[in-house]
């Protein structure tokens, strides 16, 4: 079971073939390289001009999906956090008790129980992102797409968020990030350049090619520095 892209051509994007296995996949690359366009297609928000995308053999638009946008402040529709998290279930007329249960579960899964009665606009940038994550997972998605949402998280919070997401056991998580330490811990990495997939594979197969660039994971660089010196981290 996997995400398959075939003969895709859409705007600046051109991806003849790409297979992403189950688990956490990081999409990264330079600003303007087509990452957001690819993510929107994978999430079924846009339809490819040419080519096909399937998730476990199905059209992504037919799956339960969660999406966290790159402008978290713009994600929210409601003023109170608990209402915002509940909104996807309200829109499908779920029963009140079911909504309540799902909201507490989602809030617990990302550690924002303490924020549920707060106003979304009074949250910090990072807290708004966690609220958007809880909203994205409240409906138990089979595919979770995160578009550079972690640029507003400090690295401790980003690590916390990654652990939360892994614990949810969502079959497919596609995470666009500029944090190469997150990328290094992913199951699969897709590195984009000028609308094309430049490298794809496990972190161990992708990053050695980027060793002399700022894209090399800082934690790996550090490990190598310290293994050839007296410093231990």
């Amino acid at each position, binding site marked *: 079971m996997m995400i398959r892209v075939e003969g895709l051509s859409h705007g600046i994007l051109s991806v003849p073939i790409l297979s992403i296995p189950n688990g956490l996949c990081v999409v990264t690359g330079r600003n*303007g390289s087509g990452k957001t366009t690819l993510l929107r297609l994978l999430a079924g928000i846009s339809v490819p001009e040419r080519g096909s995308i399937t998730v476990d053999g199905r059209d992504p638009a037919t799956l339960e999906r969660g999406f966290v946008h790159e402008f978290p402040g713009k994600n929210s529709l409601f003023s109170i956090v608990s209402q915002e998290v509940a909104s996807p279930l309200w829109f499908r007329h779920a029963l009140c008790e079911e909504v309540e249960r799902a909201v507490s579960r989602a809030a617990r899964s990302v550690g924002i129980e303490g924020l549920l009665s707060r106003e979304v606009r*009074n949250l910090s*940038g990072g807290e708004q992102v966690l609220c958007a994550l809880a909203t994205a997972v409240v409906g138990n998605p089979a595919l979770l797409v995160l578009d550079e949402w972690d*640029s*507003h998280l400090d690295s401790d*919070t980003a690590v916390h968020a990654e652990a939360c997401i892994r614990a949810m056991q969502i079959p497919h998580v596609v995470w666009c990030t500029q944090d190469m330490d997150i990328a290094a811990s992913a199951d699969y990495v897709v590195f984009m350049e000028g609308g094309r997939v430049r490298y794809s594979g496990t972190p161990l197969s992708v990053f050695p090619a980027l060793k002399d660039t*700022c894209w090399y994971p800082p934690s790996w660089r550090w490990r190598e520095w310290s293994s050839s*010196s007296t*410093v231990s*981290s």
Partner: protein
Amino acid sequence: MELVLDRVLVKRGEVSIRASCAFSPGVHLVTGSVGAGKSTLALVAAGLLPPTEGSVERRGIARSMLLFQFPELHLTEKTIREEISSFGVPVDGVLSRSGLFGRGEEDPLSLSRGELKRLLLSCVLARDDDLLILDEPFSGLDCTGRLRLCREIGKKRGGIVILCTHERHFLPRVDVIWEFEDHTLACRGRVPEAIASWQGAPAGIKALVAAGQVPQNVSFEDIGEAACRTRD
């Protein structure tokens, strides 16, 4: 020239953010985890949020600028060209520095997040403000953009630059390190002495300090240089 926050307290929900500090000319790094108070400090320093208690005094500061964490909050114009003009800076220079040459007539909202951030950074860095406050300027930039921004900040001379960020790997050379501790701003002092007492320092810097090799400054190059010194 000096920005003085005298026993400032800002209430945000259940949380009280406190700062009593003076910022002199130079680059000030303000660190702290999400929700610690960095953006609140940026708003208070810029004069956009009156403190609940205490006072803010600007001594000899005529012009100031705040770059918001979310770049779309700055947008007021329909085209990139008009947006740049609204900052009172030369349009063509900013277009080429932000990698958007030839795209002046496009809608700023058609840019990707990283491109928008790069555009607004070029606008604020092209100005000559006495006080420049950058709230999370690295977020949304790829690593090449982060390194370039570090070099640009390093070129700023004369004014006060307050850099509020959680970035850990790509930082510019800075003069003073500040840190939020339980929502209270604490000064760690001038660099390099401040580096040893920086509690939230990235793991790499902490390991260097523990090994007795305090880097000269906090930039990517300085840390790499200090790491090389530890090799036999």
